[in-house]
């Protein structure tokens, strides 16, 4: 059994904060955030809420994982979180490449990609440190 390192706990804490923050934006203030601030050009009442709901689950699970003691207990969840972040980066890049967005949503997508890349790098560093 391997102990969970401090950097992994910090990363989980960060994933928790990010998950809860995005859950708030996607679930609670989705109409205001997407259609007023971001000026999202597509209509979809269900996809945004479900994305927010899943981010809430991610945030809560990351919070629960912080209190675990053994790396083996959270290893697969951590792997899922890293894979999820990597997938989100890819899908956002593909969306920018294929679709044409107005300036504000485009800037939001680019900001998301930058934040997600930071999360991915942090996750990979933790994974490697935890394995060494």
């Amino acid at each position, binding site marked *: 059994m391997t102990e969970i390192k401090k950097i992994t706990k910090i990363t989980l804490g960060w994933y928790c904060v990010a998950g809860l923050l995005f859950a708030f934006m996607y679930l609670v203030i989705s109409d205001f955030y997407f259609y007023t601030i971001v000026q999202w050009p597509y209509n979809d009442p269900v996809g945004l809420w479900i994305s927010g709901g*899943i981010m809430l689950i991610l945030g809560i*699970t990351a919070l629960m994982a912080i209190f675990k003691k053994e790396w083996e*207990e959270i290893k697969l969840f951590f792997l899922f979180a890293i894979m999820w972040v990597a997938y989100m980066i890819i899908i956002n890049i593909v969306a920018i490449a294929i679709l044409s967005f107005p300036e504000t949503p485009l800037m939001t997508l680019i900001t998301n990609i930058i934040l997600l890349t930071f999360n991915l790098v942090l996750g990979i560093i933790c994974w490697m440190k935890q394995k060494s």
Partner: protein
Amino acid sequence: MTEIKKLTKISLIALSIIYFIFGILLVFLTETFIGGLTGWTNPLSPRNFGGILLLGAILAILLLRKKEWEEIKIPFAFLFSFFIMTIPIELIVMIVYSSTVPAAAISQTIMNEIIMCSLFTLGIVSYLRQRS
């Protein structure tokens, strides 16, 4: 250390099959599955969720290879807790938008709700049996 019970493995197999099917539908057939049924045009959010489902299917298969319950407890709870959010959100959205979407979309939502409720119940029963 607790051994993983047969019911838990069955629920993981069922979950991976359903997540895989819906993941493929949402990622690769978004315009037909969502746009064709409801007229909603967002190309990104359903693909985000579909990708999460595909990753969830992969995670469920990885969990099947483990031998100890303690190793899969957190990811197992994480995968099944998606339904805590998706069941009420899909239901609320369909009630609110029932007058603006065609009957096929309502029929699809009812089928989704039945599948999700069945899987969620299976997950809860497996979790409780595993703990007892």
